[in-house]
């Protein structure tokens, strides 16, 4: 009986969630018809930040690896797209997986030798790596990255000639479709063997190693997956702006991604969405304050952390209730 009740409870909870999700989806679909193009663009960049936040969340939130050079991976994805598209005319859609693979492969290459570093040491190495990527792009190696001007004239994403994503509304649907798919994938990943292994490493690395988790392998996997997703973000970003330049991938931007994950709540997917909303919408809402808006923004970050240090929507730890195992608490003692 107890078990049945639990399942019923779970079902009603699931229904509530379903209603909320469907409502959000409906609102999201209808929004471009209500608001003007400027705000559609703002929501597009909210989507980009959400995607990048989700990608960093794999590394920082799930595994607890401090990565302050995540924009380096985004840059690799964006420049792969930009260069291959402008030089060889390869369609953007085909370059989407290519960018992901390029960024992932880059992450595997550079992270393999440094993955054994702990905490702040890993943090500073990722900063160094991100800066090396940005500075190298800025220096125009072999004349392919265009130096500080960057690469321009990138195509819109298109499927053949009949479906071209060429305006704000289409881009809005495009990014949120990809964010949606990513969320579905990441929720499944969280509940999988890999997700549990990651969380185990985050909570206690030595204990994880002792239980037979290949720590090095899983950490690298997190970096490669996170970077791959960041590459996807870079691809979309490049095709929207039609230009990529090194200053878009600065250390400051990496810090902003870091803040998205921490403001939302480490390892929490809804948290990342809220964090991305905070980072991307806040400066727009406070645009009226002109030069004071970043001042307010910084102060808000401090106040936020003082009052909610765990983030706005922290991840609940998975718990197993006694009832669900058909064991009554205290029975063993009696």
């Amino acid at each position: 009986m107890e078990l049945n009740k639990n399942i019923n409870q779970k079902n009603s909870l699931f229904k509530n969630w379903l209603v909320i999700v469907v409502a959000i989806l409906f609102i999201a679909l209808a929004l471009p018809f209500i608001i003007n193009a400027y705000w559609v663009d703002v929501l597009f960049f909210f989507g980009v930040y959400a995607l990048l936040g989700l990608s960093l969340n794999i590394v920082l939130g799930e595994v607890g690896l401090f990565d302050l050079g995540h924009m380096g991976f985004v840059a690799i994805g964006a420049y792969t797209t930009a260069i291959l598209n402008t030089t060889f005319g390869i369609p953007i859609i085909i370059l989407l997986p290519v960018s992901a693979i390029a960024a992932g492969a880059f992450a595997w290459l550079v992270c393999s030798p440094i993955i054994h570093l702990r905490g702040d040491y890993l943090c500073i190495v990722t900063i160094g790596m991100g800066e090396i990527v940005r500075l190298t792009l800025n220096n125009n190696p072999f004349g392919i990255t265009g130096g500080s001007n960057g690469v321009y004239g990138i195509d819109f994403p298109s499927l053949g000639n009949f479906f071209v994503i060429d305006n704000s509304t289409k881009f809005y649907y495009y990014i949120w479709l990809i964010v949606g798919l990513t969320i579905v994938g990441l929720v499944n990943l969280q509940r999988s063997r890999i997700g549990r292994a990651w969380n185990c490493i985050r909570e206690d690395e030595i204990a994880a190693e002792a239980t037979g988790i290949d720590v090095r392998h899983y950490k690298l996997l997190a970096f490669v997956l996170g970077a791959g997703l960041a590459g996807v973000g870079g691809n979309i970003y490049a095709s929207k702006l039609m230009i990529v330049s090194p200053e878009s991938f600065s250390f400051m931007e990496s810090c902003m991604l870091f803040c998205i994950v921490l403001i939302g709540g480490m390892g929490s997917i809804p948290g990342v969405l809220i964090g991305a909303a905070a980072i991307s919408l806040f400066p727009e809402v406070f645009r009226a304050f002109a030069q004071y808006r970043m001042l307010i923004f910084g102060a808000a970050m401090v106040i936020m952390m003082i009052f909610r240090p765990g983030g706005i929507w922290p991840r609940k730890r998975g718990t197993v209730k006694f009832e669900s195992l058909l064991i009554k608490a205290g029975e063993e003692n009696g």
Partner: protein
Amino acid sequence: MKIILEQLLNGLTIGSFYALIALGYSMVYGVMKLINFAHGDLFALGSYLGYTLLVFGSSYVTVTFGLWGGMIAAMLIAAIGIGIAGTLIERIAYRPIYSVGRLPAVVSALGASIVIQNGIMVIWGPRPQAYTSQVVPSAMLNIGGIKITLMQIVVLIISFILMGLLFYIVQKTTFGAAIRACALDRSTAALMGINIETIIFFIFALGPALGGMAGVMVGMYYRKISFTMGWNYGLKAFTATILGGIGNIPGAMLGGLLLGVLEMLGSVYISTAYKDVFVFLILILVLIFRPTGLLGEKIAEKV
């Protein structure tokens, strides 16, 4: 040979800026295990404070104390001002969240950094400002064929005095021993009767004060200051801290000087455009082969 010596001197000058800023990072990290991201911006604030005193207040400062006295006075006032700013930031942004772990403090530090950087922009304007030549002497010396600016000598002398002073305080005095004890183990240090609150107050005053003085000296040396320079110098100085071994005071000095020299040699012998890439590559290589930095001690991991 002459070029090498000149570049070595240039490198040492830049390196001493990095070292002075790195000391602030290192002291705070040693005791608090916190990367004080606002430190670089405090350094920039010091630079602007010195600018205001020397350029706007030249009729008071330079006239009252003379050319050299004015520069020293500006540095001391900037040091006091930035020291106060550092302790204020600790009170407002860090103290309420020490107990909840390290990551919220990172966000809080980044927030404080954004506040200071944009505060500077609001007060002094977004355009770069210049230390004019009326308040800073621009004489060029020629010692045995080696060209060196007067400012370079001043900067080197002052920063070595400051570093020596700090080295003495940290390594030889009782107060320094208390700081080192806190860096080793804060709770045990508290049990031994060390007042942790006082130590934290002083490291957050001392570190930024050194950074503020470095800020004034950067202004006097390069003439041009901008409100975003805190990030660049902060990042380099933090790199220097790690290079020397984080939390280690002599390590921060060594790391800073080494970083400056490497940067200069890299820009001469490799390429100017790639000098920062070269610096970060060295950093990564050092960390791969010596993960605790050059002077860092290996700490056994607690289970």
